[in-house]
């Protein structure tokens, strides 16, 4: 044996070596600014950064492994929660048969788990999935990745989903075309797209819409990431990796909501819906907001909108239920982004979260929970 292994937590000055490890293993470069943003300055506090080092017989020490947990603030109604997202779990290939990485993560987890109510991961290679299982994560929530053609889906979504059961009603009320006692009720709330304002990141960062949005709306939402201004600012508007367009409902609207989209640099006719939140956690409100965003995109020459969420029954907040409950529709108007095999969002409720009665299910998840790196 020529080397000794030890582990420790992050210290100031480690960032450059971590970025080098990250580049060697993933092939991606990350600047110190991006590191600071991702790991040190999140609203949930500094990330959990654990390092494994090898010291050779000459006393030289190399960073050979890293395991991180990004703190993501969640809420359940008025209750604040802190979740952790596993990120950058990596070990230099030449050490994968020399140390037992899972041993290290178990030790790290013993230290960091009490800080978090739940842990989750997004997706990863088969080996990462096996590791998550071994660490006690549950695989029951499937990812759903949709790509929605804005050019004609929006009207179908609106007509078929929102007013699905009352299509005739909608014709009468919204268009006044069928006569009868309700004819001409054009002002009926819930008809037609919302007026949306488009903000760039600088504008969104200061827009008064977000002063009150989440403080007022969170009570109606179940388990979901927090959307206070500082959460959105960190994840989107001050994110050094991306630039976004934030669509907010008009201040006169009785259905406040916002949608954050990121337009593809290489294919400007495509965009990703990074987050979409109506104030009222309700499937109809969700679809009206989605419809409005699709309409905005269409008029701005964006013809495909990608959206990722999880396929789970979300009776507690209604939003994901709205999407998953209408699979029949989506099968006809969307195509899956990839023909991947089924992938799951691994989740683990910690002892801290268990004491609060947290559930593995009924989360409303959007790409807000992703790493935040431009893909």
């Amino acid at each position, binding site marked *: 044996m020529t080397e000794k292994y030890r582990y420790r937590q992050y210290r100031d000055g480690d960032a450059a070596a971590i970025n080098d490890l990250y580049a060697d293993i993933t092939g991606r470069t990350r600047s110190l600014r991006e590191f600071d943003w991702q790991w040190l300055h999140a609203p949930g506090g500094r990330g959990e950064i654990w390092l494994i080092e090898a010291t050779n017989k000459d006393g030289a020490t190399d960073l050979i492994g890293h395991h991180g947990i990004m703190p993501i603030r969640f809420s359940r109604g008025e209750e604040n929660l802190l979740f952790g997202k596993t990120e950058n779990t990596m070990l230099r290939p030449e050490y994968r*048969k020399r140390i037992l990485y899972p041993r290290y993560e178990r030790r790290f987890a013993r230290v960091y788990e009490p800080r978090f109510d739940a842990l989750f991961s997004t997706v990863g290679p088969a080996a990462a999935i096996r590791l998550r299982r071994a660490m006690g994560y549950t695989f029951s929530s499937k990812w759903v990745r949709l790509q929605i053609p804005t050019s004609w889906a929006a009207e179908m979504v609106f007509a078929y989903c929102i007013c699905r059961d009352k299509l005739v009603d909608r014709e009468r009320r919204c268009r006044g075309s069928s006569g009868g006692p309700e004819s001409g009720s054009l002002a009926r709330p819930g008809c037609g797209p919302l007026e949306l304002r488009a903000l760039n990141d600088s504008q969104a960062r200061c827009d008064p819409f977000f002063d009150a949005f989440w403080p007022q709306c969170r009570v109606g939402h179940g388990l979901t990431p927090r959307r206070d201004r500082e959460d959105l600012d960190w994840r989107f508007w001050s994110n050094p990796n991306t630039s976004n367009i934030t669509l907010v409902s008009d201040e006169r609207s009785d259905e406040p909501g916002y949608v954050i989209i990121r337009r593809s640099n290489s294919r400007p006719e495509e965009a990703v819906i990074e987050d979409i939140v109506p104030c009222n956690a309700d499937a109809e409100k969700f679809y009206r907001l989605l419809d409005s965003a699709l309409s905005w995109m269409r008029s701005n020459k964006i013809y495909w909108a990608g959206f990722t969420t999880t396929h789970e029954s979300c009776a507690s907040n209604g939003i994901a239920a709205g999407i998953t409950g209408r699979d029949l529709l989506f099968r006809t108007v969307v195509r899956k982004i990839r023909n991947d095999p089924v992938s799951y969002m691994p989740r683990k409720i910690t002892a801290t979260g268990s004491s609060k009665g947290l559930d593995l299910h009924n989360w409303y998840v959007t790409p807000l929970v992703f790493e935040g790196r431009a893909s």
Partner: protein
Amino acid sequence: MLSKTQIEETMLNSGMAVDSQPPIPTDRNFYEMGLDSLDVFNVFVELESLTGIQVPDDDLEKLQTIDSIHAYFAAKGS
């Protein structure tokens, strides 16, 4: 005392996909048999539980065959 058979049984019971039929060659490196570090981790979790002996991280690198594991635990008194 921990026997080679017990080590082999621990490997097979851990559910790992060993690309050798039992009996597992006692001098064959685990990783050459297609195991990964998670498989080996699970084996050591079981062996440590069975013997009550904790194997330091720095010793694991040399414990990659049934023979070497057997000799190691024997030297530790198990």
